[in-house]
């Protein structure tokens, strides 16, 4: 049914009120996604308003791009269309925090930083620390399956998200999962929403598992001579009784960016537990480092703030490289070789969780063709063992030149397409941006 723009605007205004809807050029331009300027910017204040907007969009045939803090809008393919940007920053209430149960329910627009500040009062933490997490919304972190160094100990959102309230493409408000730490009643719907980029539903509320903040924590930088030694450190560490909470790999460029002493590579390890055990494990780590020819150097408390900056590179390209843990050194080597061949002189910083083989590569500004060639080459290298390379951020031209998600095997892709067809047949939610153009 063809819809006149003004009357849709009127309906949106009726749902959102004056404060909740922006139609002026400045607001629309500021909310653009990959250069696609929406016709409306909706900022709902309640889940009911989200539901109203989606029901309207569904019936009027509009495309909706949900938005958290706007930090990850370059993830995915350029959108097929954007009519409404749905800014969820207004859903910013902590609904229920039960310290005794180590659970919290929040609205999706709450930032990880705001929650952390609250939780610190009772020495609890949500161990979700990707770069920039402080200002990112929990809904956005969930939709993009973000993770950071602490995953080495606490896992990812898959291990932290207990329940989720979302609004389906046609406006139906739906709940999945539970508010308690253990439940197997019905399908694990929260898992389906993690990393789905809002393509199956717009997240409005999350129930999360919390952890106690360790009594003491300490960080060491294990300095090594090359990638092979870094690999040896990681392998030995994971095969030891040391229980690290972070195991991050850095290449030479990342060391430089973090203001750390120059070197070819290093492994940053932190341990968090009772003070006596931190000491004991520090000694064990030092011995382990010596055995493989490296050196474990204690770091100041602000190490992880500086580390976060090593991954940030304005205007460049960011990649997420997943590889086998035993393939870390080889992936580092291939990246160096590929960069030298395809993008000589372009710095490539590598950081990431060595304990699970989840690396982040930040490239300085680079021609899209060169970046595309580099990504394809890396994909060819890690794919045989089941690895993947995703373009997390970069210019639109790059994400048009190649699929930022990379290939997904036909079997799972068929199921993913069937899911999208079932839950968003009209392609309201973020159309075109997800894997396989979903």
């Amino acid at each position, binding site marked *: 049914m063809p819809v006149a723009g003004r009357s849709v605007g009127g309906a949106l205004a009726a749902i959102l009120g004056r404060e909740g809807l922006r139609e002026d050029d400045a607001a629309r331009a500021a909310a653009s996604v990959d250069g696609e300027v929406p016709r409306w910017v909706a900022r709902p204040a309640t889940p009911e308003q989200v539901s109203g907007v989606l029901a309207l969009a569904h019936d009027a045939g509009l495309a909706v791009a949900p938005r958290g803090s706007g930090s990850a809008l370059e993830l995915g393919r350029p959108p097929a269309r954007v009519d409404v940007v749905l800014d969820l920053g207004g859903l910013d209430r902590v609904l229920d925090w039960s310290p*005794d149960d180590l659970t919290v329910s929040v609205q999706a627009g709450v930032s990880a930083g705001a929650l952390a500040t609250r939780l610190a009062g009772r020495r609890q933490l949500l161990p979700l620390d990707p770069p920039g997490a402080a200002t990112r919304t929990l809904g956005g972190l969930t939709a993009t399956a973000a993770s950071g160094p602490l995953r080495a100990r606490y896992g990812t959102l898959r291990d932290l998200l207990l329940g989720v309230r979302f609004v389906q493409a046609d406006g139906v408000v739906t709940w999945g999962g539970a508010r308690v730490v253990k439940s197997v009643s019905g399908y*694990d719907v929260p*898992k389906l929403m993690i990393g789905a980029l809002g393509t199956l539903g717009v997240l409005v509320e999350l129930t999360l598992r919390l952890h106690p903040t360790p009594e003491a924590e300490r960080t060491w930088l294990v300095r090594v001579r090359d990638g092979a030694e870094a690999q040896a450190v990681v392998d030995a560490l994971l095969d030891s009784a040391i229980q690290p909470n972070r195991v991050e790999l850095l290449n030479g460029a990342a060391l430089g960016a973090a203001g750390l002493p120059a070197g070819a590579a290093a492994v940053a390890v932190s341990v968090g537990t009772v003070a006596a055990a931190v000491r004991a494990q520090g000694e064990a780590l030092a011995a382990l480092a010596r055995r493989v020819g490296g050196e474990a150097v204690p770091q100041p408390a602000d190490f992880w703030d500086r580390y976060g900056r090593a991954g940030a590179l304005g205007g460049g390209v960011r990649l997420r490289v997943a590889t086998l843990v035993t393939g870390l050194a080889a992936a580092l080597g291939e990246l160096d070789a590929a960069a030298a061949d395809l993008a000589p002189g372009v710095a490539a910083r590598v950081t990431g969780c060595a304990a699970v083989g989840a690396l982040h590569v930040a490239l300085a500004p680079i021609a899209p063709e060169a970046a595309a060639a580099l990504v394809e080459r890396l994909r060819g290298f890690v794919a045989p063992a089941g690895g993947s390379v995703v373009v997390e951020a970069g210019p639109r031209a790059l994400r048009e030149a190649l699929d930022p998600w990379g290939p997904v095997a036909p079997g*799972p892709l068929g199921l993913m397409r069937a899911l999208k067809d079932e839950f968003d047949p009209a392609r309201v939610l973020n159309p075109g941006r997800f894997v396989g153009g979903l």
Partner: protein
Amino acid sequence: MALTRTVLDALTRILGPDGVISSPEGRLVYECDMQTFYKGAPDVVALPESAEQVEAIVRLCRRERVPVVPRGSGSGLIGGAMAPAGGVMVGLNRMDRILEVDLPNRCATVQPGLVNLWLTRAVEDRGYFFAPDPSSQMVSSIGGNVSTNAGGPHCLKYGITVNHVLGLELVTGAGERVQLGGKVADRPGYDLTGTAVGAEGTFGLVTAITVRLLHAAEAVKTVLASFPSIEHASEAVSGIIAAGIIPAALEMLDALMIQAIEAGIGAGYPKGAAAVLLIELDGPAAEVEAQAERAAAICRERGALDVRVARDEAERALLWKGRKEAAGALGRLAPMYMLQDAVVPRSKLPAIMREILAISERHGVQIANVFHAGDGNLHPLILYDDRHPEQVERARAANEEVLHACIAMGGTVTGEHGVGLDKAQKLPLQYADADLNFMYRLRGVFDPDRLMNPGKLLPSHPACGEGFRPARPRLPDGAWI
């Protein structure tokens, strides 16, 4: 439902005569799982030895529109691996090989019929273990654990089965064999692996599983504390969590349970103990040492009658003995029991235990409690004598009320055993129509003909019917033409 000759012949062609059980006596063995209330023998039992055979069976059944019921070891407690609508039961216990152990990458790939404990046995000499440890781990299959998303005493710290599954090979209800996930984390796309864990066979059959292996902890320490009341013990649980300690296991037994155990094996719990708390800590030696001391001190501060710390492996086994033999000890009190698996927020433990006591008095039934206190997962055991029908009725009524009480306190109907036939009609207590409808449609994506383990996990409820649409918000009137 009687199977046609065509189906039987085709199954025999796929599996050979050794792989098909069709005699009435043979099929009877498969009429129920460990929840023996529910009975339903399949028309035939198929025993494949490969994923290819599983795929052929599903395709055949789909063509002939015959229900398919997967079965691992049949240790389930929910009426899961049984065939209320007849059809073909696919027993996976012949597919019990370890396909690959990759310790440097800390994972293994196994066939679904492999018994849980065998995997740990295969890697423990090299210092690794498979974390999910349902009390049935000596018999239950990893395929069954994955399909029920099983928990265990140590999942407080280590998480439940899904937290340890990296990948699955699944033969969907559409008869497609797909590889979901794998050794490398962070695949682009929807987390189909995570979504398929716990599907109880309703998405299809799991034919291979890649699981994470963990490095064994350096040290383990077990503390046993007894208390004059459940309130005291619950206070201690809260105190331990508030001190920032997450024990590997935190189990509680109540007065009736203690009485049964003392009358039976005699675990040496002190007189007057109305609650026993079993606390197990593992991790780096220095951490375990400090935390065990702290936990013991907290128990004393909260009025423990007696606190014991195991000094060696033998003593540790002794402290666990009462917990492990709890259910068996009940045999002295009554011939039968119903087992509940609901969950409440941990902070509601004292309240729910008071409520359960009231329910037991109201219905004149004895209820013993042994449960995973750390995560609020209750296991009230409601005692009855099945020779007296009115006792059965009273037990049933009490069981029902316990469940409702847990939901009213913000809990869930099942914490680890699963839904199956047993709890399918209970899901509406916890989910609204829109939520159930979403799940119903999700199942259809994996199993379009709804032939995979029909009648399980989802209720026969209006929200799960064809054509049902949950209410959508009303749009503002007259906004456009």
